[in-house]
């Protein structure tokens, strides 16, 4: 346990319940295949093939383009009416072969199912075996891995779809061999800026890590030779060697931790789940865990970085953040992690909205237990929530000083004139956020500073004690 104990002020009520309505008004997440596509594009020389209607990939590509301001290659089996009647097997076979022939670098094709093809009941595994045989016959010099990913859209959400695809990739590709001495790192659904920061931590600690998935190049340059380098960097070899790592560090309980459990159960790779490193304490815990697994010391440089962040946060917390009420929505690991971060900087996360239906799993989440122990104000946690839930509560009188969430909820903040800081996915209505870390010490610092600046701007536009900043 940490030596820095949280003050136990007064226990307050923390409720966890699903939203009351059955339908959704303004969804918080996309469906499973969208999440699977995000995991798939994190692999190098990989084009996900979405088995479904064309909209299932076309709009998801657009969504990624909106968030990252980049293009990603994702293919579709272009399910048409005849396949809906007679099955889509032929579309898969043709799609795999067309991709393989036209993209000579291609090494991995995750075949991502959707609602329609799961209902039709195409035999995915059987069809991929046929495809594999056909590829070996027609392209004997190539090795192309076909990965079945079952993500019916009527189950889970983009969160579970991401987790499912990460797990399927590892399940299909991981192979026992020589120990690598490397640490698997399941990052969860984060931004390139987060990946850069994680790599920095591993470099500082002199730890060899396999980042799953390495999306750092989703922020890619314009180059004189016009080459395009917007690819995932996690290779087939990286995925293969996940079975030979010293351990798996899983940074997100709902986004990939299951792949760590699989590696533990199937390949005896020790599994180390930690709370997603949002805020100071969670980052401390992560670094200590890395130290524990690898035996490497936490270097002075990270003590320094931690201190820089604390120094910046201390300027903001009790002067500007204390007693400010916050609503947070987005992915469960993000929302719960940011709630913990809020507690560190004296913000009061009074409403947490999580968008899918894994209610029973949330009950066991230690972060919720911690909020119950430490909060001195009431917290409502709503799962299976939509963004109308937030809008409605504000219209019903909920007073908020800040909203933390992604761009899909922008009009709630605009209409209610509440300062909002974009965080999570997608954040298409703010420039460059994908480049900034939200995890780690630096992420905590940059997020706090964005929050402060949003509040300051709001004070100025509303002429609400804006003069306080005449001297600060």
């Amino acid at each position, binding site marked *: 346990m940490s030596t820095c104990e949280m003050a136990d002020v007064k226990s307050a009520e923390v409720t966890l319940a699903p939203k009351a309505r059955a*339908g959704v008004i303004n969804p918080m997440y996309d469906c499973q295949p969208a999440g699977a596509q995000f995991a798939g594009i994190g692999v190098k020389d990989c084009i996900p093939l979405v088995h*479904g209607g064309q*909209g299932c990939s076309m*709009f998801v590509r657009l969504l990624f383009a909106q968030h990252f301001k980049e293009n990603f290659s994702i293919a579709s089996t272009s399910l048409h009416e005849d396949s809906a009647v007679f099955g889509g097997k032929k579309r898969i076979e043709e799609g795999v072969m067309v991709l393989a022939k036209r993209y000579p670098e291609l090494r991995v094709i995750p075949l991502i199912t959707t609602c329609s093809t799961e209902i039709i009941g195409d035999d995915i595994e059987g069809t991929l075996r046929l495809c594999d045989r056909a590829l070996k016959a027609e392209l004997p010099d190539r090795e192309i891995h076909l990965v079945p990913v079952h993500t019916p859209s009527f189950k889970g959400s983009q969160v579970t779809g991401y987790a499912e695809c990460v797990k399927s990739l590892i399940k299909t590709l991981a192979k026992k061999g020589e120990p690598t001495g490397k640490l698997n790192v399941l990052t969860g659904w984060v931004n390139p800026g987060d990946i850069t920061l994680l790599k920095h931590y591993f470099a500082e600690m002199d730890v060899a890590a396999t980042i799953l998935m390495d999306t750092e190049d989703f922020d890619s340059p314009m180059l*004189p030779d016009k080459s*395009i380098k917007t690819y995932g960097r996690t290779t087939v070899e990286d995925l293969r060697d996940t079975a030979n790592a010293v351990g798996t560090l899983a940074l997100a309980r709902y986004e990939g931790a299951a792949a760590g459990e699989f590696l533990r159960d199937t390949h005896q790779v020790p599994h180390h789940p930690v709370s997603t490193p949002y805020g100071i304490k969670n980052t401390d815990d992560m670094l200590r865990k890395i130290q524990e697994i690898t035996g490497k010391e936490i270097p002075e440089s990270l003590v320094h970085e931690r201190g820089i962040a604390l120094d910046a946060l201390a300027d903001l917390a009790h002067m500007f953040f204390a007693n400010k009420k916050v609503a947070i929505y987005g992915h469960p690991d993000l929302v719960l992690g940011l709630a913990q971060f809020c507690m560190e900087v004296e913000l009061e996360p009074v409403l947490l909205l999580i968008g899918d239906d894994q209610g029973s799993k949330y009950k066991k989440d230690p972060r919720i237990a911690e909020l119950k122990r430490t909060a001195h104000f009431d917290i409502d946690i709503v799962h299976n929530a939509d963004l109308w839930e937030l809008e409605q509560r504000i219209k019903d009188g909920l007073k908020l000083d800040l909203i933390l969430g992604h761009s899909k909820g922008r009009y709630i903040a605009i209409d209610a004139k509440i300062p909002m800081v974009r965080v999570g996915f997608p954040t298409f209505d703010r420039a460059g956020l994908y480049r900034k870390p939200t995890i780690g010490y630096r992420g905590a610092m940059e997020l706090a500073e964005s929050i402060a600046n949003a509040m300051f701007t709001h004070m100025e536009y509303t002429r609400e004690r804006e003069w306080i900043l005449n001297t600060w």
Partner: protein
Amino acid sequence: MPMVLLNCDTDIPERQKHVYLKSPDDDPATCLPVANAPTIPGTLSERGCAFCGAKLVIGGVLKDAIQMIHGPIGCAYDTWHTKRYPTDNGHFNMKYVWSTDMKEQHVVFGGDKRLAQAINEAFDQMPDVKRMIVYTTCPTALIGDDVKATVRQVMRDRPDVDIFTVECPGFSGVSQSKGHHVLNIGWINEKVGTLEKEITSEYTMNLIGDFNIQGDTFLLQKYWDRLGIQVISHFTGNGSYDDLRSMHQARLSVVNCARSSGYIANELKKRYGIPRLDIDTWGFGYMTDGIRKICAFFGIEERGEELIAEEWAKWKPQLDWYKERLQGKRMAIWTGGPRLWHWTKAVEDDMGIEVVAMSSKFGHEEDFEKVIARGRDGTYYIDDGNELEFFEIVDLVKLDVIFTGPRVGELMKKMHIPYINGHGYHNGPYMGFEGFVNMARDIYNAVNNPLRFLAAQDIRDPLPLIMPERLREAA
């Protein structure tokens, strides 16, 4: 050989039928790209689905209807925050989307009850809204929910609401085009003629196939107001559900987007004898022709000439300033379909720009007939172009600017080609006289962007390219 087999298509030679390079002595009868045909799986086509054609393109534009999507959450999520069509009531259409959030138990046991529940909830949550469109999706179609029966029941229970159902599962047809058709035909069958609105002018028309992208409809409405024409319905830019029930009252149907909305104009003619008049609303020459045709129909030519003269006096000098500076610039258009033929000659005549490559996602062969007739020799005309084809075409034609979607635009940026949003515009509206000046300005700003030159420089190069000292002039 006028039909071109690109290198990247060696393994899918059937693509040759979809790529046409126009030359002067071609026989137009044999040189039409095959269009509206099934997509080859795995090609990285740009196409969407029938559902998006119905919801995102047409129905979701309406300013006063709940858009209830009966299906898993993704269909709703994905067709929200992807369009720029404002309304005069605070953008109700862009702020909200509704889903029945279909889950596994509904797939197994049927989703009808869930649909009824979600519809009732939606009306309860937003008591001021009394109109709704319900869309089916792939799974609801596959499991065979009787959506129309559920909707009828809700309408019996709630006499003050009106609901329209569109059966548009994503797998039907080969592209979004199928969804346009289903919505058009469904609407005329079920809703047109069910409401009479007050007629305030002897000149009445429907404006069909304009979706108020960045305020196109608002801009054009100023013209109709000045001409004293009552627009009975807008199909569907800034449109109202109830106005569209009165389409039968108009004396004339004016059609801009013939691909997405020509069907309903044809049916209005067949069933109600309302003549269909196709116009182009982008471009000075076309807009002028369009206003003249409409005014001739109503016998108000003088008013029309007055409006045209005023608008030309105001905007033509600005357009000409840009035209002088855009002479010979080479442009590509990779959009849905109709904008190819709306724009290719308009930008040539009004701005001096050469359109050298065009690709259409969902155009039909009749659209290609139009664009090839209007387009230049030496230009590529592509049906359902895909990513590798785009790269190859960009190498073949030297481009100064491309009109396409944000995703392809990001690819082009890496190749130092500036992109302008050909769907949602950069800084529109682009329709009408003022709009075309906006479009010219956006092109001028794009092609004279200094970053293009900087991107081409390699800082290690001992003899760097000389960057022009002055790229831009004060407009």
